[in-house]
């Protein structure tokens, strides 16, 4: 690996200063589970690594039934999985966090890292999209908030400017009778990158869907929403048939490619399957809320 | 006399014969006698006075570890086979 220096600031301000000072060659390290591999492969060559794990607000999970969730961007996935609030209110996002890599990886990897690495196949991104999550970003010019659906700009690329850090993920408190679900397809049972990932969040009024969001991973240059599939469901009863149709509409939103993990043909097919399953799973949970 | 089974791709030297009964007390002698009867055969299996690196000899189902020096009996069945590999 190339040479670099390492700093571990304890405040967001210090981190922003460090990142801003070192031009384009500074990089945040959180879990390091993507970054260190990229650095070993010389894909990235930062001269400075800024470790954000010692910044308290980035390590906290706080939930308020009115204002919703403030999820520290550096909270390791395993802590999300073990957090009762997360499991109760955001089961889909929680299960996405619990699918990333092995337990060893989850002990280090964070949702903020997953977001900022901006892989099209990131497991938590479709779940965040489905929840309408917002990234709270601190930078040299203060803070700003960017909805996750506007966060990605291409494979491995996002809206972050020089010196900016995603500090927290903000998610509204779940509406009554709403719930989320995330499902992915991998050839093994663990340890793979999603061939397709699908996150769904639905709100029910009795039998009828009053709100729905569907996020898809690994089927486009960035994680995407499937708005037509979600809109179709509004006012309908969510059952096998409507879920199937929503799955077909989700397929239309996808523009997958062939790669070593799967074929475009297979991905397009599986988008529909997973969308259907994620929707039905979310609805089942929502009925219990 | 021992009987020698000819590998498929060498049968062109034996006029298509799959097996030949031939005298000899060692593999080397058998090969020499075979070569007299079917000129050119020896060069297919022998190099620098030893079996070729790609060739092994089986006598009555067991590998002839002595190569050309291995003794054969009157009733031996001799097969030329590819040399072994393994994982």
């Amino acid at each position, binding site marked *: *690996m*190339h*040479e*670099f*220096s*390492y700093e*571990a600031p304890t405040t967001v301000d210090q981190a922003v200063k460090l990142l801003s000072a070192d031009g384009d060659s500074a990089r945040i*390290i959180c*879990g*390091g*589970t993507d970054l*260190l*591999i990229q650095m*070993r492969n010389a894909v990235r060559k930062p001269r400075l*690594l800024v*470790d954000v*794990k010692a910044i308290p607000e980035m390590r906290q999970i706080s939930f308020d039934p009115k204002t919703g969730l403030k999820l520290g961007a550096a909270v*390791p996935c*395993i802590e999300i999985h073990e957090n009762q609030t997360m499991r109760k209110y955001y089961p889909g996002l929680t299960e996405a966090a619990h699918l990333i*890599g*092995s*337990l*060893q*990886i989850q*002990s*280090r990897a964070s949702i903020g890292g997953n977001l900022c690495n901006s892989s099209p196949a990131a497991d938590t991104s479709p779940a965040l999209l489905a929840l309408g999550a917002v990234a709270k970003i601190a930078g040299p010019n203060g803070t700003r908030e960017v909805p996750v659906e506007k966060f990605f700009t291409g494979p491995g690329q996002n809206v972050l400017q020089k010196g900016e850090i995603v500090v927290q993920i903000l998610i509204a408190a779940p509406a009554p009778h709403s719930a989320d679900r995330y499902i992915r397809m991998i050839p093994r*049972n*663990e*340890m793979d990158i999603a061939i397709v990932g699908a996150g769904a969040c639905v709100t029910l009024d009795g039998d009828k869907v009053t709100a729905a969001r569907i996020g898809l991973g690994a089927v486009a240059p960035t994680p995407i929403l499937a708005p037509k599939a979600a809109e179709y469901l509004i006012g309908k009863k969510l059952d096998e048939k409507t879920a199937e149709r929503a799955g077909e509409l989700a397929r239309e939103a996808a523009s997958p490619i062939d790669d070593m993990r799967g074929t475009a043909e297979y991905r397009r097919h599986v988008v529909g399957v997973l969308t259907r399953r994620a929707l039905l799973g979310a609805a089942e949970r929502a009925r219990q809320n | 006399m021992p009987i020698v089974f000819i590998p498929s791709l060498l049968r062109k030297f034996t006029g298509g014969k799959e097996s030949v009964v031939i005298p000899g007390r060692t593999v080397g002698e058998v090969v020499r006698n075979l070569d007299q009867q079917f000129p050119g055969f020896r060069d297919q299996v022998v190099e620098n006075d030893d079996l070729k690196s790609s060739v092994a000899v089986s006598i009555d189902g067991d590998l002839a570890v002595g190569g050309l020096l291995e003794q054969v009996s009157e009733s031996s069945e001799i097969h030329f086979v590819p040399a072994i590999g393994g994982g």
Partner: protein
Amino acid sequence: MAKKQLVETTINGEPVEFLCEPRQSLLESLRDILGLTGSKEGCLTGDCGACTVLVDDRPVCSCLMLGVEARGKKITTVEGLAEGTKLHPLQQKFLEDASLQCGICTPGFLMSAKSLLDRNPNPTEAEIRYALAGNLCRCTGYDKIVRAVMDAAKVIQAR
């Protein structure tokens, strides 16, 4: 050359100080600087688990953590699993159940399994398989590894 940094940490219960370059992983620090070669390198991508150590009691691939990140942490490696000459039940059962062939993955499996049993002393087979999914073994087909963890759990429960 980027300046070496002093890292104060705790390894296998002992306070330890070492100097490392920021680019040296925790795995390199343990193996090349501290001589703790029990943790193994298998892939350097966090996929095989042979380098698994516990950091503040959680399993981590030490190939995907920098040595400098160990500052102030509590690190446990396979060398710290036994108490003196008294083997951990997992070590004992791995021996008795013939759970290792070449043995290169064994330290990582032991650490992942320890982490599991520390949290869940009575795991099901499925829970064991899930907890060990980040550790690859190519020799055993996992059967005897899973059995050893089940057997070790019984020993721990009986205590």
